[in-house]
């Protein structure tokens, strides 16, 4: 019985770390977007600082996962370990993208705002929703919710394209805004990447709870039961 308890403890620790990392990543994106919209220089700096925590957690999770793999877990335990490694990698990238957004926000806050109508706020909200949705699905063991996240990535992709075009147009017409527009384009791209990572997390969640690998299929499929 000893052995079972030990591996359960480690699996729980793994899950906990993953949840902690998820919450940090969500906060990072949230705060980066707030720093952007509220032009908050200090907040932007803080986001960059906190990314270190996220990076550290990725290292710890991978380490713990390797240790667990050495004990040859099987079935759902095995899936948990491999999924944890993948999710942590995606979350670390999310943290990096949040940092990029924060840096751009920091630069933008030093200059007057650009007068252009773009749907960046809506895109930000979408990306944040997708991330939250994927992470909630993981916490709540809800593969169906995870599957629901995946198709919405297209929306974000579409918005990114739209924003990029609008900004390109604006840049051509107002060359003095080039630097600021480029920053905004970068931010849009980061948001698009965050949505992609959120989708990856959702796919891993489906694999964890349903043992179905739906990556690269381009469709959600029916929930396999």
């Amino acid at each position, binding site marked *: 019985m000893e052995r079972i308890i030990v591996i359960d403890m480690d699996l729980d620790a793994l899950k906990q770390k993953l949840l902690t990392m998820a919450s940090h990543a969500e906060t990072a994106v949230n705060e980066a977007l707030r720093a952007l919209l509220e032009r908050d220089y200090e907040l932007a700096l803080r986001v960059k600082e906190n990314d270190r925590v996220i990076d550290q957690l990725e290292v710890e999770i991978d380490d713990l996962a390797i240790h667990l793999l050495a004990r*040859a877990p*099987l*079935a759902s335990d095995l*899936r948990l370990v491999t999924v944890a490694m993948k999710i942590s990698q995606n979350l670390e990238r999310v943290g990096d993208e949040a940092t990029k957004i924060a840096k751009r926000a920091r630069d933008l806050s030093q200059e007057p705002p650009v007068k252009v109508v773009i749907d960046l706020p809506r895109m930000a909200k979408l990306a944040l929703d997708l991330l939250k949705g994927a992470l909630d699905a993981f916490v709540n063991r809800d593969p169906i919710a995870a599957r629901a996240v995946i198709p919405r990535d297209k929306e974000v992709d579409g918005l990114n394209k739209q924003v990029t075009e609008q900004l390109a147009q604006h840049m051509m017409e107002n060359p003095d805004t080039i630097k600021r527009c480029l920053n905004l384009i970068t931010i849009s791209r980061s948001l698009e990447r965050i949505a992609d990572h959120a989708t990856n997390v959702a796919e891993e969640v489906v694999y964890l709870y349903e043992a179905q690998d739906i990556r690269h299929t381009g469709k959600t499929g029916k929930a396999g039961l």
Partner: protein
Amino acid sequence: MNLTMTPEETKAVPGAPAEKSPPAPQRFENKPAPAPATPASRPVAALAVKNLSVFFGKHQVLKNVSINIEARAVTAIIGPSGCGKSTFLRSLNRMHELVATARMEGDIRLFDQDIYGKDVEPVIVRRRVGMVFQKSNPFPTMTIGENVTVGLRLNGVRNRAVLAEQTEKSLRMAALWDEVKDRLNAPAVSLSGGQQQRLCIARALAVQPEVLLMDEPASALDPLATSKIEDLIRELRKDYTIVIVTHNMQQAARASDHTAFFYLGELVEFGPTSQIFTNPKQKRTEDYVTGRFG
């Protein structure tokens, strides 16, 4: 609960092409000429078990087990102690009959021939379905070479050339030839544990069975010897049907193509090994495989 589970890709082929004749006239000892190993053809069931129940006196050890063992593949049988896996293995070559109070119901067919038929002697069945045991047991009064050929010699084969050839062939198949070729006259008990077990495998292979049953063959061995046995099993799979009972799930995951999980005398789940160990369908299987019980 549906107990007649088969891996999806296995269907019992109605009979080897053309050689099969209707039940009555065919004598059991004539092996049907083995269908050539064409990977593209549908997998053949080497052993088709239907509704097998085994009783020792009043105690029912196996309950209505139905399973198809694929030919030229490795099938692992896992389960906690006392679940009936050893009894199941032994019923495949009628070794459970060594217990006086043993009784069986149901049907077991070896390449479509009933091994429990009225006129079928256990001795004949056992020449076609060989067995290797948990603790290696080379005969102590014989040399290494004599141990390998004992099955042939005591069945009347006298030709020295044939015996020598078969000795080398079997020892090579058991990955033991290089280690013992210079001392075939040494007593069999002078070998190490792992070598003795491979000798027992060679001994079983020398009589050219079609199926090889292995009852926890590596449980008494150190890890290095164990991995040699596992490698050996993977090699043998090209020519033999292998059924292996094991306590060690990692071993089952490493060495087998299909896995059957037994619990309290019932076959709970049977499927491709990769599926059983990454995504079992039954909760009991999942619990056992992750070590939550048993």
